[in-house]
Structures are given as structure tokens and as C-alpha cells.
């Protein structure tokens, strides 16, 4: 039972109320309400953390309906770790978004490609004030559809948002997303997971459209189709599970599930649905992220796809009967290995920074799948290490990818282009950008080595090969960008106004925080060990 249900319910209600109030009071109210929500959230998160820390796992039946009929809010070490991760990223993203959207309002055409140095740039850029159509006349070396593509890319719909609306509309949607995330991490029921996943979809799709280009509309539409498809597959799977067991609560499912044909089908469908949601399967992530505003891209890669992975983690370790998963987990590891290498290779091929980082995200999301073969054999001591390494990896990836995307946003701000070859000399103009990118990039390269310990303990040496190849490829694409940033340029990149120092201090702080996570590894593992699936509550 829960000491006081106030704090756990306020985790969900506070952002929701904030979202509604911002929507009611309109523009500029976010400047007061978002800091208020963040302060209130920090208090309730701290209180909830203390409750869990002193009294162990907490559960709260909503409206006192007991388990077979009602829904419970449930907090254990893993939930509280995810809630803290969400809170930290929320604070940083909110700070960053205030700065980003004030710039974004005047900015209309940063996605316009600058032709290669070695192609003869015959074209010129015209800015049509009304429609913001940018025309670059084709050079001989470019394909004929070049002009058309560029025109479509940057054509903005003048009716879509009056001036400044995109800035304002981000906030209610973002607070709704935050509320959905917290509700997801506090759920203990497979159907609640479905509902909260749909809240995430409903909140994140309109945020992608804020970029207000035709390609962003397309990306949002494609993301909506893929997300709803995955949700329907997930719903089908939980209908199967309900048909067999007659309950969808995680603990009762864990007790009553036995292997059988229907269960196999359900496991397969849930795995497919959640890997799609977490961005690993069919690579919808890249085009969505490339067309979304930077803060929205950060929310997608750092929070939304981690939420889907969290459900997979819960379901895999706490629901499915473990005697049958040994056969499957090696196959899952194989899929992860293929995706790691393929996506890293794709990242190396990219010419645009955001797309490079998007492929890097796919690869990093696939690394975490490797813990399933490594943790196979749930009663052994090394399986806890693998489980914990997976969560640790997942949380640090969220921080690091957020920092990298923030730096990328700052670089776009400086050079006004998404193309890597246009970023020469950025290190000269803004050394802090270079330092932050280097720290975050090096963290990204080093992080998968967390998995070496579980690999050593489980003796499955073949996964080490995947990690080595993946790390080499990661190093290649990070240094590919760093090399360009370091380059001295004869005629320096033009930049206007101030350099947006806070835009670079925020990711710098975030990367230092990630490095600092290594110092607090003991505390983090103590938090995670509270009522973990490997604790005493474990089913035999």
C-alpha cells in the first residue's frame, strides 16, 4: 500500500493540468506555467523517491478498486529510475526549447541544402517572402528533380500557423507527452501500457508538424501510421493474453502464464510491436526525426522510444515464462547485431548531421536489445548484471543523444545548414560547441562497453565481436563530423547575432552529467535493485 497517494498521482496530474492551463491562457502563459510545473514536479518526484527509498515498492489502487477490476499505480526501483531520467531530460529540453523556439520563429529556411564545393554552384537562392519558397537553380551535376525537391521541402503553409503559434503550441503538447510518459512508467497493467502508448502518439505526432513543412506533414503522417499499426498489433497480443489468462495485470500474468501456442503468438506480436515503437524495426525514426524541430527530435529519441523499450523490458523479464525465452533470445540478439552494424554503416554514409544522428539513435537503441541474450537464465547472478547494464545503457543513451541533438541544433543555428560539409570551421567560431560535441561523441563511442561485463560473465563471447565492430563504426561517424568541425576555413562561416550561449551550455551540462553518472553507478544500481524482477518477489 501507499503511504500517501498524493505524490504518485501528482506525477501524472501536474503536467496534465499545466498543459490544459497553458492551452486555456494562450501565448506567453507558458513562461510562468512551465517553470511552475517543473518546480512542483521536482518536489513530488523527491517525495515519491523518499517513499520508495524508505518503504520499498509502492502501489496505489485508483479509486480503491482492487486488482481484477481496477487499475493500480505501481512504483519500484526501475519506475523511479525512469521517472528521474524523464524529469532531468524534461528540465533540459524545456530550457533548450525556450531558446530554440524564440530563434525558430524568425527562421524559415535552414533545411535548404548548400551545394557541394566541387559542384559548380550556378544557382542562387531566392526568398519569396509570402510562401517562403526557396529556389536553387539546378547545377549540371545534380539530378533534374533537385529544384523540385528543394521547393517542396521548404514550402511552408502560410495558413498553418500564425506568427509565433508554433512556439506556443509546443508547450501544451510537450506537457501532455510528459504526463503520458509518467503514467506509462507508473502502470502495472498491459492495457494501461496500451493507453499510455497511444497518449504518447497523440502528443508527439502534432509536435512533428510544428516544423510546418510538407515533408514534416508527411513524416508525421508516416509516423502516425506506423505507431498506430504497432499499437494495433500490441492490442491483438494482449487480447490473446487476456483470452488465455483472464487478467492483464503484470503480477497475475506472471503467476499464471504457461507456454503454449497462443502465448508464443502473443510474445511474437508484442516483440514486433514494441521494437517498432522503440524505433529499431523498419527505420521510420530517421525521416521523422530529420523533419521534426530539434526539441521534438530530442523528445522522440530520448523519451518516447525509451518508453516502448521500458515496456519490453517489463514484459520480457516479469511476464513471459522464462523457460521458453532461452531459445528466442539468441535470435533477438542476432536481429540486434544486424541492425547495429547496418544502422551504424548507414550513419557513416549520411551527408546531413541530423540524419547521421538519427541512424546513430537506431544503432544505439539496438544495442540495448543485446541484454536479452545476455540475461538469459533469470535465476543466475549474472542476469541481474545484464538487466542492470541494459537499463544503465538505456538511460545514458537518452542523456547523450539529447546532448548530441542539442549541439546539432546549435550548429544548425550557426551555419544555417544541415549539411555536414557546410560545417567547416564551426570549432573556430564556437569552441564550446566543439568541446560539447567531442565529450558527447566520445561518451557515445565508449558507452556500449558497459555490456562487456555481462558478456564476460555469461561467456557468450560472440556478442563481443558485434560490440567491437559497432564501436569502430560509431567512432568513424563521430570523427567524420569532428574532423569537419575542427577544419580551419579560409573564409569563415557567416553568423548573425549572438551565438546563443545558453543553447550550448545546456548540452554541455547534460554531457558532464552523463559522465558524472559513472560516479554514481553504485547508487543507481541500489535504486534499480529495489524490487527488481530478481528480488525476493521473483516467481520461484
Amino acid at each position: 500500500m501507499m503511504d500517501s497517494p498524493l505524490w504518485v498521482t501528482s506525477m501524472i496530474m501536474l503536467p496534465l493540468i499545466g498543459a490544459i492551463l497553458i492551452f486555456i491562457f494562450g501565448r506567453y502563459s507558458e513562461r510562468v506555467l512551465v517553470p511552475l510545473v517543473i518546480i512542483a514536479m521536482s518536489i513530488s518526484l523527491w517525495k515519491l523517491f523518499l517513499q520508495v527509498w524508505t518503504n520499498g515498492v509502492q502501489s496505489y489502487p485508483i479509486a480503491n478498486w482492487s486488482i481484477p477490476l481496477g487499475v493500480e499505480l505501481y512504483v519500484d526501483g526501475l519506475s523511479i529510475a525512469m521517472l528521474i531520467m524523464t524529469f532531468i531530460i524534461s528540465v533540459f529540453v524545456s530550457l533548450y526549447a525556450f531558446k530554440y523556439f524564440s530563434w525558430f520563429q524568425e527562421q524559415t529556411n535552414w533545411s535548404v541544402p548548400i551545394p557541394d564545393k566541387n559542384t559548380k554552384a550556378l544557382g542562387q537562392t531566392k526568398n519569396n517572402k509570402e510562401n517562403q519558397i526557396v529556389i536553387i537553380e539546378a547545377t549540371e551535376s545534380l539530378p533534374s528533380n533537385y529544384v523540385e525537391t528543394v521547393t517542396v521541402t521548404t514550402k511552408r503553409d502560410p495558413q498553418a500557423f500564425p506568427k509565433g503559434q508554433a512556439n506556443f503550441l509546443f508547450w501544451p503538447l510537450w506537457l501532455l507527452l510528459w504526463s503520458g510518459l509518467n503514467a506509462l512508467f507508473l502502470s502495472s497493467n498491459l492495457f494501461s501500457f496500451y493507453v499510455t502508448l497511444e497518449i504518447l502518439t497523440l502528443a508527439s505526432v502534432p509536435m512533428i508538424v510544428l516544423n510546418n513543412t510538407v515533408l514534416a506533414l508527411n513524416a508525421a503522417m508516416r509516423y502516425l501510421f506506423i505507431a498506430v499499426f504497432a499499437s494495433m498489433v500490441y492490442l491483438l497480443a494482449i487480447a490473446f493474453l487476456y483470452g488465455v489468462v483472464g487478467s492483464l495485470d503484470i503480477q497475475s500474468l506472471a503467476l499464471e502464464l504457461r507456454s503454449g501456442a497462443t502465448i508464443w503468438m502473443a510474445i511474437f506480436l508484442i516483440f514486433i510491436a514494441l521494437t517498432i515503437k522503440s524505433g529499431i524495426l523498419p527505420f521510420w525514426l530517421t525521416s521523422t526525426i530529420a523533419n521534426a524541430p530539434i526539441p521534438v527530435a530530442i523528445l522522440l529519441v530520448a523519451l518516447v522510444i525509451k518508453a516502448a523499450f521500458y515496456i519490453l523490458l517489463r514484459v520480457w523479464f516479469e511476464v513471459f515464462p522464462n523457460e521458453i525465452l532461452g531459445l528466442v533470445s539468441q535470435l533477438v540478439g542476432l536481429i540486434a547485431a544486424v541492425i547495429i552494424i547496418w544502422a551504424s554503416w548507414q550513419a557513416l554514409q549520411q551527408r546531413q548531421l541530423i540524419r547521421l544522428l538519427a541512424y546513430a539513435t537506431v544503432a544505439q537503441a539496438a544495442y540495448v536489445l543485446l541484454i536479452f541474450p545476455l540475461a538469459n537464465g533469470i535465476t543466475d547472478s549474472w542476469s541481474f548484471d545484464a538487466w542492470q547494464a541494459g537499463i544503465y545503457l538505456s538511460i545514458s543513451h537518452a542523456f547523450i543523444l539529447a546532448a548530441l541533438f542539442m549541439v546539432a541544433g546549435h550548429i544548425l543555428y550557426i551555419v544555417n545548414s544541415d549539411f555536414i560539409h557546410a560545417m567547416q570551421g564551426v570549432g573556430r567560431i564556437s569552441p564550446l560547441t566543439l568541446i560539447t560535441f567531442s565529450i558527447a561523441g566520445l561518451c557515445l563511442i565508449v558507452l556500449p562497453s558497459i555490456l562487456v561485463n555481462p558478456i564476460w560473465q555469461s561467456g557468450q563471447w560472440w556478442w563481443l565481436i558485434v560490440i567491437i565492430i559497432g564501436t569502430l563504426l560509431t567512432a568513424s561517424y563521430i570523427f567524420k563530423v569532428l574532423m569537419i568541425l575542427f577544419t580551419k576555413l579560409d573564409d569563415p562561416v557567416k553568423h548573425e547575432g549572438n551565438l546563443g550561449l545558453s543553447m550550448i551550455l545546456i548540452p554541455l551540462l547534460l554531457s558532464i552529467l552523463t559522465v558524472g553518472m559513472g560516479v554514481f553507478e553504485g547508487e543507481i544500481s541500489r535504486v534499480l535493485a529495489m524490487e527488481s524482477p530478481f528480488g525476493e518477489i521473483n516467481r520461484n
Partner: protein
Amino acid sequence: MADFVFLPLVSMGVFTIGVYALILDTDLLRKIMALNFMASSVFLLLISISSRSQPAVDAIPHGFILVAIVIMVSLTALALMLARRIYQITGQLYLLEDENETGEPL
């Protein structure tokens, strides 16, 4: 009890049609319809599960269906609005290819 053979079969058939249409049709309205087909088929499966326990009907799947219907309505509304906006701007109801998907130069 005969319902428990017939209804799940129908629902799986409809689900398959939905997946087929969602993946292979290019028209946005057809894709949105296909998503609703998939949702309805899962609802049908849940109804058949709840009707299995005779004589009293299991009420929990009904609750699931009600919640899922509300979610599906709002998602459909969002999808229709996006499709309408795409139609207003580009004059067609298809998804554009993302221009740089393969890493090729533009």
C-alpha cells in the same frame, strides 16, 4: 460456444485485410480506413472472448473496447486532419518519398 470458433476467425480475417491495405494501398484515406479495420477486428476478438464465459458475460473486455474506441476515434480524427492538410498543400492524397532516405546526394 460455436461463436468462439467463428468470431475469432472472422476477426483475424479482417485484421489481415487491414494489414494488407495499410501496407499496400497508397491512398491516405484507404490507409486510415485500414487502421480502423484492424482496430475493429481486435474489438471483435475481445467480444468473442467475453462471450465465452456463459451465462454471465465477462465485462472487462467491454471496458477495454470502450477505451480503445475512444482512442481510435481521436487518432482517426488526427490522421484525417493531417491528410486534409497534405491535400490542401500538395493537391494529392499520397505520401511523398523522403528525399534523402538512402544517403544519396539530393
